[in-house]
């Protein structure tokens, strides 16, 4: 004898819970496989590491109502052309350094992290580096001795000296340049790059 309506039945909701969970997870797995393949380095959304040999810009597209990365002509980093493998190693050193120095607990990367210091997603393109001629040198000095080359913008907030070596600083700059070329669906919005000013 079972006069209980379906919506009040324990076993009915148990089945719903199992099917909904399994179904959602299955969809997530399929989307994950697709997303990972679309975002491998070298694809349209996440460029190959050798993109650090090129001019990277981020330009507003009227039609799309958002900015997208624009990869241009040659613009070597540290006056040197890197093969894909050399570029990968350099970016890898930078990425690893960014983790070992715990950058993410002050800064945000791709908008994720802490909110004590500026976002690094498009840091390579920031107008704060004044001009493309000065940029690499300013970044090197800043990363290796931030307490002396502080960029506080009147906030008194200074990056501490993290003991970053010259090689690590170069790696970090390569990592930032590569990251700025990732298609982030228009985040950040309305960003004016160092090229826009020139």
């Amino acid at each position, binding site marked *: 004898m079972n006069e209980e309506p379906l919506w009040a039945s324990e076993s009915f909701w148990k089945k719903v819970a199992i099917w909904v969970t399994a179904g959602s997870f299955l969809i997530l797995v399929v989307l994950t496989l697709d997303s990972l393949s679309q*975002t491998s380095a070298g694809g349209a959304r996440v460029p190959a590491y050798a993109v650090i040999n090129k001019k990277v810009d981020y330009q507003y597209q009227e039609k799309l109502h958002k900015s997208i990365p624009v990869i241009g002509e040659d613009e070597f980093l540290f006056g040197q052309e890197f093969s894909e493998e050399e570029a990968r190693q350099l970016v890898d050193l930078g990425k690893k350094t960014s983790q070992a120095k715990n*950058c993410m607990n002050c800064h945000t990367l791709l908008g*994720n992290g*802490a909110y*004590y210091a500026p976002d690094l997603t*498009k840091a390579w393109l920031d107008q704060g580096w004044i001009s493309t001629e000065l940029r690499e040198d300013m970044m090197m000095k800043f990363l290796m001795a931030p307490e002396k080359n502080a960029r506080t913008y009147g906030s008194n907030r200074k990056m501490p000296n*993290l003991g970053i*070596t010259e090689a690590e600083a170069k790696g970090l700059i390569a990592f930032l340049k590569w990251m700025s070329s990732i298609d982030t669906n228009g985040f*950040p919005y309305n960003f004016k790059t160092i090229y826009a000013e020139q």
Partner: protein
Amino acid sequence: MNVTELVEKATTRVKDFKAWVALDSTNLTDGQQLAVKYFTVAVILFVAQILFGLLAATQFIWPGFLYEFLDFNVNRMVHINAMVVWMLYGFIGSIYWLLEDESQTEIVGLKLGNLAFWVLTAAVTLVVLVYLLVQIGPGKDSSLWLINEGREYIEAPRWADIGIVVVMLIFFYNVVATFSKGKWSGIAGVLTLDLVALAGLYVAGMFYMTNITHEQYWWWWVIHLWVEATWEVLVGVIMAWSLMKLLGVRRKIVQTWLYIEVALMFGSGILGLGHHYFWIGTPEYWLTIGGFFSALEPIPLVAMVVHAVYDSGTHAFKNGNHPALAWIIAHAFGNFFGAGVWGFMHTLPQINLYTHGTQWSASHGHLAFFGAYATINIAFFYLAIQHWRGNVWMGAGIANAWRWKWALGLLNVGVLGMTIAMLVAGYEQSFIERAVEGSTWGGYFTAQNHPSFQSAMSWRLMFGLVTAAGLGLLVWDLLTTGKGETRKAQVITQH
């Protein structure tokens, strides 16, 4: 003074302290004795969380404070790590607490469980010491293996990751073996499957990747699928058991609700993961999927409020542990507002484009973690204390009731105050830094230097101090409540 004298002195102090708190572990079952060990460490880490939060909040106002000694990144890392770990300790403790009662048998593998507790606690201590004393390393794999991985929330170095997985496996063994020996139930089934997911997901965060898009993709699998899916279900399990024990709600009702909550929680939360995939390089379809499913995430939280309040109402709030029930109710509302409303406010991509990476997230994070998880753990601390003292009466008319009431009030007002202050700061950042200035470094600092941001940071520190005062009172109350109480709590029967 030599070392022996120091040790003797410390031992005497500990003995004096034990005599003062007068807790009697013979009142507890084996599983409960293990549970209170976890609760004790949880409370200590809770205190650490608040202390390091205060340091970080102070640095927002005086950036020179502890500069190049304990920098913001260190304080912030300890602040959020202590939080994640104390909440996990609280959950593990709660599960050990209810395990024997729910399975109606003695815990299996107790020795191993105890060993796991000491291993985990030693590892946590070592990790925190390294965070504080070593802080950072060179850009090599060894830094990620030994110092910290530099990934928000799961900074613990790789060696500790492996240790955590081993401890989780032992914990999982305790749970499954005990239910297998005793009795399975709906609650036991949901709990077991949830623990599989919880432990399995952690593994997704244990890899280094050069490609930051891939790395953040998996990183969110851990963070999101923990706090917005598996942790919520775990809390649902704990809540279901608590409502039976505190109010005598019938098993059939809580289990049916639990299944509904699981369906709604996983149905919205698993694909709601997409709201973290808007701007990290992942395909555009996540804007639609993430926006839609994460917008549904508040629904199960509404269901949980209805469930808790309805059951409390039908049982006329009659129960023998007022502080615990009050914190359960605080949990139901805190979860709904903190995780639900505050999350929904900035979850659609059209607004998230401007709020992403601002104090909005911090505002949501504070109210959500407190409302959803701190509250229910505190409820369990009260439940544990009650039984540790021999199931004493902790209902109406207990001595020094002002302490738990003020602790409840101060903690809630403190966290809510911080939340509102950071929300104001987040609004200001979204408009000035994001919308007007286009998120340049100049724009970032223009927003940080704005008077409304600056005053918001002062208010945040002030309410942080209110929170700390509430926590101090809570610890005092937990140590003393029920002391000298001779009345026994009524045994609650299901009706």
